[in-house]
């Protein structure tokens, strides 16, 4: 445990080594350093995890970060159950992605290769800072750090303007969320006088006004929306596919997007005291889940489908958080990390094998070319679709049951989302691996090297069995190990939850049956439909709308971006140049003008000079004698 502060420092060291010596190191060394530090961090995390499991949590206070007057913000790390879980996910999945990258990015030059690993390490560092931070400010540091890294990685191929735009978009949208977070932090400081989790939560429930708590939680939610790609700040995530595929995997699975979930889970005590905020969280989550799922239905880019599926799954997690199933949400984070990393890396493998072709319409029949990838992807699809006993089933089920407890409407909509998930995932599966190969004849797809497939296998394994740590009561008494493990984090707040009527076991069985049955039906339908080549028809009606992602990007562009640019133009031309500056220059011009006029008084004519003098004399006489002061 005492080595815990080293966990984030190791990736930082890796970043510095790779970053500063990028021109000197060979790819092998870079890869070893880059992955090695994460591996060590993972091992240390595991040690920490075991300590935590033994009931030992600790706060490391390193130094005073900001200390002014009454405000003290130490640089502190906190390792507890929630952190431990996230540490394992981040370093574990992160390590696999690093390994994978050594092969995937091998075509880059030395310096760029090193740069890539430096960014990856920095990314992990930031994320570790985020989850290990002992107060909101440290969390915010990591929070912005991941934003920065996503910017750097999405724009990794900086020659391409579209990629740069995607990177910029990611950063800016994250910043919108960050502002919300920042405001929340200020509010917390004002309300509690501190930002340390323990100090803040120990003051709860206290006698704080509902407005304050609701305000704080809503502001935090805004932050979470940005980072975890929820409506309305989700559009950056699909665009973030511009980065190399391992980056997508890292962003979507292990890091970044889970930050929002982590933050809300971390602030659970605040949220349970603000039921309205909870409701908002749930509704936003649900809406995001559905919206993203509908969009995913019609995407043809393999990474885009996965991206929208991520958004959708994150929506589920938010739904879980919103209905109070914090454990469920964290559980889903974990399983999602496994299978989404798997899917992305698998997709990366496919793309790698297909020579950077990402359009699924050019795939088909890859089963025989890339068996390992195919197997792994199938596992991933099954897991995300929620087929028992794959991991996704348990976590998603837990959220759906909790949603049902909150409101049957949540459940029905959630289920609809789950069905769509199953549909588009198997659409992806079928279009990619089944049927006939539709790509170029002379570009033969090939299986990927070991460094790619081994992580796939590991992740596939985890996707299959990962759910077993959270077996619901229904199947096994005390089967939910994760729940028990996380209990200390959520225990305090649970007693203030608005008790939902927990559905009876029979209801639960029925729900399970319905959902599994429907999902299987959908899968069968999807596989059948998409194994055959599709007619290349122009989509119409709703299809077209979905294909164009509900035109949300266009909407944002028209409603927000363009007006802002227009205002900028207005300011810089109308107000700045011909307004304020003209006014300022006008003073000067006015003086010059009056100068030209005034000098006409000096007509050169003595007579008029004398006349003006006499008139002035008269004026003064009048003033002195006839104006009473």
């Amino acid at each position, binding site marked *: 445990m005492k080595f815990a502060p080293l966990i984030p420092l190791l990736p930082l060291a890796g970043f510095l080594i790779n970053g500063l010596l990028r021109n000197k190191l060979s790819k092998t060394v870079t890869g070893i350093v880059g992955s090695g530090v994460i591996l060590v961090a993972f091992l240390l995390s595991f040690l920490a995890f075991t300590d935590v499991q033994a009931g030992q949590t600790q706060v490391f206070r390193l130094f005073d970060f900001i200390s*002014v007057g009454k405000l003290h913000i130490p640089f502190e790390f906190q390792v507890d159950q929630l952190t431990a879980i996230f540490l394992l996910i981040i370093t574990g999945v992160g390590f696999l992605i690093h390994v994978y990258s050594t092969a995937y990015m091998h075509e880059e030059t030395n310096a760029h290769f090193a740069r890539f690993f430096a960014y990856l390490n920095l990314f992990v560092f930031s994320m570790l800072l985020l989850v290990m931070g002992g107060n909101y400010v440290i969390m915010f540091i990591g*929070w912005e750090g991941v934003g920065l890294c996503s910017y750097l990685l999405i724009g990794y191929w900086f020659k391409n303007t579209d990629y740069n735009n995607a990177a*910029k978009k990611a*950063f800016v949208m994250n910043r*919108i969320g960050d*502002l919300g977070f920042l405001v929340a932090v200020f509010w917390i400081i004002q309300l509690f006088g501190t930002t340390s989790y323990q100090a803040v939560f120990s003051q709860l429930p206290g006698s704080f006004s509902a407005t304050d708590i609701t305000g704080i939680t809503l502001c935090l939610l805004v932050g979470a929306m940005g980072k975890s790609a929820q409506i309305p700040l989700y559009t950056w995530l699909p665009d973030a596919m511009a980065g190399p595929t391992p980056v997508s995997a890292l962003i979507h699975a292990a890091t970044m997007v889970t930050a929002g979930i982590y933050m809300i889970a971390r602030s659970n005590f605040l949220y349970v005291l603000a039921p309205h905020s909870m409701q908002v969280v749930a509704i936003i989550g649900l809406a995001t889940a559905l919206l993203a799922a509908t969009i995913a239905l019609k995407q043809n880019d393999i990474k885009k489908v996965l991206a929208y599926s991520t958004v959708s799954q994150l929506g589920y997690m938010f739904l879980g958080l919103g209905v109070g199933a914090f454990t469920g949400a964290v559980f889903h984070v974990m399983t999602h990390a496994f299978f989404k990393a798997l899917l992305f890396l698998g997709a990366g493998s496919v793309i790698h094998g297909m020579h950077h072709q990402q359009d699924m319409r050019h795939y088909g029949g890859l089963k025989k070319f890339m068996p390992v990838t195919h197997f792994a992807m199938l596992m991933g699809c099954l897991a995300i679709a929620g087929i028992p006993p794959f991991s996704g089933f348990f976590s998603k089920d837990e959220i759906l049951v909790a949603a049902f407890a909150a409101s049957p409407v949540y459940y029905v909509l959630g289920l609809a989302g789950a069905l769509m998930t199953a549909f588009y995932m198997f659409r992806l599966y079928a279009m990619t691996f089944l049927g006939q190969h539709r790509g170029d004849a002379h570009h033969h797809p090939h299986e990927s090297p070991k460094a790619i497939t081994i992580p796939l296998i590991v992740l596939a394994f985890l996707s299959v069995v990962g759910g077993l740590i959270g077996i619901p009561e229904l199947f096994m008494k005390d089967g939910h190990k994760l729940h028990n493990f996380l209990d200390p984090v959520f225990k305090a707040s649970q007693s203030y939850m608005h008790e939902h009527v927990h559905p009876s076991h029979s209801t639960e069985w029925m729900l399970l049956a319905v959902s599994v049955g429907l999902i299987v039906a959908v899968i069968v339908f999807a596989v059948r439909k998409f194994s055959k080549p599709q007619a290349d028809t122009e989509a119409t009606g709703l299809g077209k709308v979905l294909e164009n992602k509900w035109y949300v990007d266009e909407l944002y562009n028209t409603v927000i971006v363009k007006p802002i640019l227009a205002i900028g*133009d207005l300011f810089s031309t109308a107000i700045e140049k011909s307004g304020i500056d003209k006014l300022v220059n006008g003073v000067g011009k006015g003086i010059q003008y009056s100068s030209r006029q005034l000098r006409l008084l000096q007509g050169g004519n003595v007579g008029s000079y004398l006349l003006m003098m006499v008139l002035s004399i008269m004026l003064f006489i009048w003033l002195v004698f006839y104006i009473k002061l």
Partner: protein
Amino acid sequence: MMLSSFIFIPLLAGLLLFFVKQENLVKGISLAVSLAVLAVVLYAISIPAGNAPLSYSRVWLGSLNSNFSLLLDGPAKITTLLTAVSFVLIFLATWKNKYANAHNYYALMLLTMAGLMGVFLSADALLFYFFWELALIPVYFLCSQWGGEKRIAVTFKFFIYTFVGSVLMLIGIIYLYNKTAHHSFAWESFKAVVLTAKEQTYFFLFFFLAFAIKMPLFPFHTWQPDAYETAPTGTTMVLSGVMVKMGLFGVIRWLLPVFPDMSSKMAGCIIVFSIIGILYASLIAIRQDNIKRLIAYSSIAHIGLMSASLFANNSIAYEGVLIQMFNHGINIIGLWIVVDIIEQQTGIRKMSELGGLAHQAPSLTIMLVIVAFANIALPLTNGFIGEFMMFNGLFQYNPWYAVVAGISIILAAVYTLGMIQKVFYGEKSATLQVKDLVPAQWLALACIVVMIFAAGVYPKPLLQLGENALQVVAGSISK
């Protein structure tokens, strides 16, 4: 005596340089002098002063009761340190630049330095005004002589604009002097002066106008983009890095303590204007194609935040302003250094004509990216500390102000990233030839980067520099 050496070393060296004709010798002397000043400043601020800050006083104009009195309290420590550091960086970074009549250029730069040091140290109103103007005169010559096109008109506008502000301040100074108990210019007696409500309104506004123009605060900012664009880059660095701090410093030293009631009464209005300025400048910055103007507007936005925070009437914001003064100075000098390198080599300052420089100048790119992110207050860089504290303080004053002002961090990201993208990213250009950093530039930027991270990760030493001042102002706020 040590304090007066802050002023006299550059002053005398500057006068000397007018008569030295060899260019390299001139550059060497300037750098050596700035390093010497830096050494003295570092020594002076490291002296544990106990409760009484370092000070120096000597009768100057006996019958006017004006003394040559200097005071090194918290704000002065930070600003003098900034001045000393800035000039070292500037001389280092522009080592390769060629100037016609270089000796005059460097002499004027050193005179500017002397003036700035004087402004930050004086504890006597008349002396303050003296240096206030003196810092301006060399800059006038620098900009008019070595600036870009339209330099004469632009500099002139800048000069007259700031001059108008300062003459009004002079009226204020004299009036207050007249009202002091024993007709004295000393800072202490100014703080003790008792004014009627009407007088306070007038003279608060007089002082404030001078400072607002210097900062510059919306809507008095229009001289600034033009001046930054046309001034020689070395001078622009002085202008943006150090000189705009004169306005803020003036508020800290002469406005808040002298007009405490009025400061809190007018705070709302000033903060609103500052915030309008922040958003306004940010929005304009987004639409700039000229990289120098972009940085200029970004500076207006940053300064707006600082001025808003100064009036937020709480210690966190205040302390935040203090260290942000330093950090902003360092960061913006870093930005200018990069811009200067690009402009020296390509002659282009339009972003739309640049692009893909990252291929040719990776070190330059990395440095710029770091500085740019520090400029938009990314955590663990120095910019974050100050802005966090300022927003925090502003939030305590009025949450809505903080939220609205906070929009600027989004807009800042937009324009800064846009700039990085347009200048450095994209396809490699066939026509643009840019060499990577030469050692002197590398050293300057590396120093800046180190400072960025040092102050961003462990800001405590900087924060402590300002702490002393905190008590002073806290005392006057409660007066």
